[in-house]
């Protein structure tokens, strides 16, 4: 039973589908959950720049190069919106980045896989962004106002990333045999990690129930996973590529696709730090952050010396 009048008012706001704003009273657990989730989401955008950014200097046409640069830049922007949303809860971006560097906050498991060929960039756009959008659209209605507003912005900008990925992969799968093979190979490697990135099964998900009651999460991991597979399975047919799941087939009775059991043991391994690129991704981010320290210090020193530029401009 809720006895605290603050908490009763808080829950009433959530139950009537209103938004909680930063200066409202909120339970500590709600604040902690949100900080954890928004930070994890922000870190995912930022670490997610690396696997795709890996191909910026090798993009095979100027058009693809421009698209990829803009996309990776969008991810930086999305990370920034999300860090700002987290900051309204009373933490600083620098603290969150420290927690990332200490391994005390996570990012999406998917970015610990390597991008080995150009087709991986298309596969990430199609599958990883597809899974991300499935997860993110409901978050536009999240109970915490700043997070929901950041997600509206993110979804607006990200809606075409999946189209870009699909288009890029389509060009490969309908190109020469070598290109088709490259596309199929990428789908073989990215399919299962994408299905897994929607999280552990509902039976094992630690944060789900409370997050649902608080309106932070609107659908369970398994519901989102089904939604994702239902979206991409028919798209695979159009691409002319075969997902590496022999059990994938339309189930007339359920009105959904059936699919095989993801390897959640692998997900656990990757999340806990032993994916192919965990160490590399963390080291890259840390190195860039450390190398930038003198620049940030110089800018702060300049601002202190020249208060005029900091005052009303």
């Amino acid at each position, binding site marked *: 039973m809720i006895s605290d009048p603050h908490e009763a008012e808080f829950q009433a706001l959530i139950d009537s589908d209103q938004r909680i704003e930063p200066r409202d009273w909120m339970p500590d657990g709600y604040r902690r959950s949100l900080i954890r989730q928004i930070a994890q989401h922000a870190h995912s955008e930022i670490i997610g720049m690396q696997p795709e950014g890996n191909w*910026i200097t090798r993009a095979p046409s100027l058009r693809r190069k421009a698209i990829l640069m803009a996309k990776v830049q969008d991810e930086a922007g999305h990370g920034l919106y999300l860090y700002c949303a987290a900051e309204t809860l009373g933490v600083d971006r620098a603290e969150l980045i420290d927690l990332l560097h200490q391994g005390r906050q996570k990012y999406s498991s998917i970015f610990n896989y390597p991008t080995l060929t150009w087709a991986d960039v298309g596969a990430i756009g199609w599958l990883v962004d597809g899974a991300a959008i499935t997860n993110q659209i409901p978050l536009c209605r999240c109970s915490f106002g700043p997070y929901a507003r950041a997600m509206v912005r993110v979804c607006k900008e990200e809606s075409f990333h999946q189209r870009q990925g699909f288009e890029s992969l389509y060009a490969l799968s309908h190109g020469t045999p070598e290109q088709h093979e490259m596309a199929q190979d990428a789908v073989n490697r990215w399919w299962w990690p994408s299905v897994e990135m929607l999280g552990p099964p509902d039976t094992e998900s630690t944060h789900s129930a409370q997050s649902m009651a608080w309106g932070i999460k609107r659908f369970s991991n398994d519901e989102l996973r089904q939604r994702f597979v239902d979206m991409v399975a028919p798209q695979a047919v159009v691409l002319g590529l075969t997902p590496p799941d022999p059990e994938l087939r339309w189930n007339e009775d359920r009105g959904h696709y059936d699919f095989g059991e993801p390897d959640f043991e692998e997900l656990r391994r990757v999340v806990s730090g032993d994916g192919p690129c965990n160490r590399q991704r963390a080291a890259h981010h840390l190195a860039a952050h450390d190398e930038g320290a003198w620049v940030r210090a*110089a800018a702060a020193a300049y601002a202190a010396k020249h208060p005029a530029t900091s005052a009303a401009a």
Partner: protein
Amino acid sequence: MVAGAAAVYTLRLADDCLVLSHRLAQWSSRAPTLEDDIALTNVALDLLGQARGLYARTAELDGTGRSEDDYAFMRGEREFVNCLLVEQENGDFATTIARQLLCSTFQLAQWQALTTSTDAQVSAVAAKAVKETSYHRDHATDWTLRLGDGNDESHRRMESALAALWPFTAELFESDAVAREADALGVGPDPAALRPEWQAYVRRVLDDATLVVPESTWTPSGGRQGLHTESFGYMLAEMQHLHRSLPGVTW
């Protein structure tokens, strides 16, 4: 009279933009803050757009009808005619900012002159590029002030960056038969004419940033004749390998 001077002239402009864009794009996910990462990519994207517009015009002027990708991916090191300054490696943030200040000040003066080009396509590219490049110059100026007049370390880094890059600025203003012909045709300015404006601006910013203009007797050159620095070959190898490994396909 130099045959095809206009095409060589626009190709030089285009190569400057493409190569500088590529170097800046190498910063992605490596900048000092997220805000700077986004800013550097914005500059890189503007430059890439400018290069594409100029390759399209070059293909008409040289009569080969080549695609933008033919220019970017199918020419070898000796065929690129960008200046040496744009191909210099990123180094630390100070080196990149110094390169940006020197390049964007030059490019802005050039684009401003190109807005009155007798070549309608070139002047159209220039009209857009002037706005973009004046932002690039502002961005570089703001950072030059902050690094030059920030703390001891940033001041020292800016000094060494300028010392390393300054020699390459002489080439920007080299005049030759192609440049003079382009000027005579009204296609674009002879870069030699841009020097006073460039010098005045750069000196003022360096002065405000408590930095001094380096002295240098060494004036490397050759980019406009396809004679580049060693690191440029590696840049091209990386940029071109995928495009060339499956020739003629659609990406």
